[in-house]
């Protein structure tokens, strides 16, 4: 359950500033590393700034969600949610400049299928990359498998992710059972679902427990329909006799709604500019990242084939 899970202990942060701090630190670390590596042609302007990283992050997150939605067989919502959470957590402590997001996002989706017991064979998985030839798909698969161990390590081996979908179901059941004032809780479902999908793209998962997100979704949907659910909160949930808890709850919900409102998809021109920078960084400093990719290779290990084929496939091949 969430209350004694690793998610609750290690991956819930106090506020948005805390999260931003971590990302900033990761960015700084990566910048320093590249600057110190002493390669020719290195200059500050060539490296990604924090807001540029953000643009790329959101872009690739959207691509991953589209990939998962177009997945055959149909991916359950919890698998998609887990994949997004992995993506977020990974880039909390690592910078986009060091590990290119296009492989990380596929590794996240692949790992999420395994963890959530959505059984897809690896060939089936890369078969969903429709733009690639079978040989190209093979290459992608090899890269995914290379990054998998590194991904798990950066997630600190905390692989279980609690998504808000089941709490939402639970709350709906509870509403139907204990709150007859509300005639048709089912009508709230569609809006709540949309709220949750949007919330998954924001940092809400890193700041609030999934049950709170679900509750916010339902309350939001109810207020949209003009229904008040305050009595439910007070009576049925028995939000502790002190008023403090209730106001804190409202506070969190307000913060969550702000997060959702603030979220917007990056503009196309920004994305293209940032991507160009990213590609150049990866091309020039790829030897730095090369060694690190093999999370499991020991020093004496000889690779099966030379890794020259990395830069051949581009983002356009994904969808």
């Amino acid at each position, binding site marked *: 359950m969430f209350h004694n899970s690793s998610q609750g202990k290690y991956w819930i942060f106090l506020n948005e500033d805390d999260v931003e701090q971590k990302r900033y630190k990761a960015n700084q670390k990566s910048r320093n590393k590249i600057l110190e590596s002493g390669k020719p042609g290195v200059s500050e302007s060539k490296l990604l700034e924090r807001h540029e990283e953000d643009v790329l992050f959101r872009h690739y997150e959207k691509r991953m969600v589209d990939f998962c939605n177009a997945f055959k067989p149909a991916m359950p919502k919890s698998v998609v949610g887990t994949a997004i959470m992995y993506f977020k957590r990974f880039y909390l402590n690592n910078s986009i400049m060091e590990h290119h997001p296009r492989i990380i996002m596929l590794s996240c989706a692949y790992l999420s299928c395994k963890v959530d017991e959505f059984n897809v064979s690896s060939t089936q998985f890369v078969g969903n990359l429709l733009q690639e030839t079978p040989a190209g798909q093979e290459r992608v698969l090899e890269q995914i498998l290379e990054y998998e161990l590194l991904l798990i390590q950066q997630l600190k081996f905390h692989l279980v992710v609690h998504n808000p979908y089941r709490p939402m179901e639970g709350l709906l059941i509870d509403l139907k059972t204990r709150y007859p004032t509300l005639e048709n809780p089912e009508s709230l479902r569609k809006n709540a679902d949309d709220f949750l999908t949007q919330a998954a793209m924001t940092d809400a998962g890193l700041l609030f427990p999934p049950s709170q997100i679900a509750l916010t979704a339902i309350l939001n949907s109810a207020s949209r329909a003009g229904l008040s659910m305050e009595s439910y909160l007070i009576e049925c949930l028995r939000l502790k006799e002190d008023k403090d*808890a209730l106001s804190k*709850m409202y506070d969190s919900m307000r913060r969550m709604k702000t997060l959702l409102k603030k979220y917007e998809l990056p503009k196309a021109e920004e994305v293209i500019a940032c991507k160009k920078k990213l590609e150049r960084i990866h091309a020039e400093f790829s030897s730095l990242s090369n060694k690190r990719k093999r999370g499991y290779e020991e020093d004496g290990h000889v690779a099966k084939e030379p890794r020259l084929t990395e830069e051949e496939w581009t983002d356009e091949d994904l969808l």
Partner: protein
Amino acid sequence: MDDQGCPRCKTTKYRNPSLKLMVNVCGHTLCENCVEMLFVRGSGNCVQCDTPLRKSNFRVQLFEDPTVDKEVEIRKKVLKIYNKRDFDFPSLREYNDYLELLEEIVYNLTNNIDVENTKLQMEQYQRENRDLIQKNKVKLTREQEELEELLLLEQQGNEQRRLELLQDEQRQLQAKRKNKQALLDELEQSQLPATILLAQHKVRAAKLETQIEQQKQAVKPTSLFSTGINMRQTVTLQLPPKIEEVLFQYKALQVETYGPPVPELEQLGRLGYLNHVRAAMPQDTAGGYSSALACHRAIQDAFSGLFPLKR
């Protein structure tokens, strides 16, 4: 054993699985027939390594690998000379050093490394510790004799039991025969009609059977327990010390869920939750699933973490 053929006649081993292999001091194998063959012609050389051999040196092979047999022979000879025991040494370290010395000697002799030096070493040791060796030999033989005595006793006991069983069986057979004979005699001589005689005979046979059964079940009184303690002997054992400890008090597990209390699994039906969950189909209930399980899990997930976390 079949994959190892005799190096001389090659095939005979496969054709004749009962054929034994013999090993000699150089560590090579020969089947029985070939041994005979070799010494009929008077020449005493090993086929593979050409070392001169005597017929008496051949022993039946016990292990699959002939080199192991060779080593075993060498070890026996070495141990006859180096026969110190662990209490002959003042410290464990010295005993281990002695054992290592032993192993080196055996290894050298087995693999034909430095044979002369090793043999010289052995002779020197023999000369120096002659009386010690003699003493230890005597000790060893005494122990072995005791062991053999015990074995002999056991064997004798077994033999006796076997004989007694045989005798019992014979007696029973005789009794049955006598019974039959008596019946025949009676049929001949007595005046009573045949059916009554047959009935009497049957009764007698039945009685005999029960007698035999009883005899089989009669336990012979023994005077010894199986551990060797006499039955009449009182054995006083020391009681183990009694340890008084504080009794364990059970405290139920308390888990902080940061949320409203969740109803128990069994109460869900009564409270009406189950009406809003998809009912379990017969295929599902066969495996032990009930709709209450899914409902309970959803409610737990919904309530866990609802209240603000304490930081």
